[in-house]
């Protein structure tokens, strides 16, 4: 059976591996600061032709930003976020 290329409506929800609850495609499409969540293709490929759809939707640069930099595990982000917060503080006081 051929899958459709258009995304499903928001009434179709699947469980999000990151949030721990059901979610609709339009959220996944912009989860990553406006870009798709890096896991979007994995989560949705059994429901529609998500990769083809996103290839049409995204520029090459956006595609790379979204899928070449997948979300980090929480523990691995901590030092980075500490440094970012410190930098923001210095920026604010500078």
């Amino acid at each position, binding site marked *: 059976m051929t899958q459709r290329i258009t995304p499903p409506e928001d009434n179709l*929800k*699947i*469980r*999000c*591996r*990151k*949030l*721990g*609850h*059901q*979610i609709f495609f339009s*959220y996944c499409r*912009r*989860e*990553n*600061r*406006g870009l798709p*969540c*890096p*896991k979007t*293709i*994995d*989560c949705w*490929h*059994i429901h529609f032709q998500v990769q083809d759809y996103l290839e049409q939707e995204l520029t090459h640069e956006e595609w790379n930003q979204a899928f*070449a*930099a*997948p*979300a*980090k*595990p*929480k*523990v*691995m*982000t*901590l*030092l*980075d*976020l*500490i440094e*970012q*917060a*410190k930098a*923001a*503080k210095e920026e*604010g006081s500078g």
Partner: protein
Amino acid sequence: MQVKKIFLPESELPRQWYNIAADMPTPLEPPLHPGTGKPVGPDDLAPIFPMPLIEQEVSKQRFIDIPEPVLEKYLIWRPTPMYRAFNLEKHLGTPAKIYFKNEGVSPAGSHKPNTALAQAYYNKISGTKKITTETGAGQWGSALAMCCCLFGLECKVYMVKVSFQQKPYRRLMMETWGATCIASPSTETNAGRKILEKNPDSPGSLGIAISEAVEAAVLGKDTKYSLGSVLNHVLLHQTIVGQEAQKQMALFGDYPDVVIGCAGGGSNFSGLAFPFIRDKIHGKKVEILAVEPASCPTMTRGPFAYDFGDTVQMTPLLPMHTLGHSFIPEPIHAGGLRYHGMAPLVSQLILDKLITPIAVPQLETFEAGLTFARTEGFISAPETNHAIAVLIREAKKAKEEGKQKVILLNWSGHGLVDMAAYEAYLTGRLKNYELPQEEIDRALAEIAPLPKPKQYRK
């Protein structure tokens, strides 16, 4: 009438946590700071964690006393009961004796308060006034909210906005326990404001919520951050589960041949398993099974390598079982089992062949969850169903072999606020998916050039 469950008396509550780092045949390799290449030190983490927790993170002391105020509050739900699953045994027609440790009886419904309580206490005595964290559906956020409340700490939970809007029950649990739960992105942090300036309607993400929680801890007066998985001190606090279980097994007059837990970040699995692994290190014959989704085979098919946490290679390097940092797990309905990397302690113990990892497909996990609910009554969290699936496999194997094996399971939490996943299964909307070997090979090729720790294996 046979004994169905054992409640330990409160006087038998373990007085110490067990630190497996003291007994590991291969010492754990420290995480390396990506900037310096040197081990991450206490000062690196001090902006977000109180020093007692950082000390526990690197401790090699075998047993660490549980402070009296933590013991007093553990008594709200601990010791947790251990059950003999007679109905499940009968249903399976197995000669195996099946036991399960019920961690779903905590007020928050899972094992997570075992560490949330300890973390709240150590923050309290370190002068912390407020703890921040992030949450999606809210299991960790609600556990921390409850425990902060018990120690008179302010708790601020940055809950992903879409979850905040869609999942009112756990948010209300947090608020009932006195926490402030705000939708992320918020206007309260630089990170949140930046997002909202660009997109006022942003639905948020876990990444944004973590950024906000860490920033609030770093910049806030007397404020720290709390994490509910993966780190050594988190796993340490969970070992009260296994120590209670050892006493309860003795009261049943049994010792397990097989110990089973689901493993996402590793905390509930480690909580039950580590005290039994200590016995194994000292010669006891016991099989320790860590269960993961077949579509996310971090433990069962990944090599052990240093993996960069991000593609620009700026985050600390932790030795972990990994599929490489571009690995994207396939769809699976188990929120707690989605970590890209397993806890370093668990990874090392797999390498040392003290833990056997097993992967199960998701339809089997829900079939197992239904079987469990229809025999023992309890509705399990989706991640707990992974462990139940392997429990059933082991029980059937015992039947085939005609052996009266003793099997022990960590029933890590109930699924009563996760019924949507059951609905998806019951209406036939879940599918199995196993990662193709070519996908594994591609991911492994990407980590080939990365620096390898001494234990690297192919």
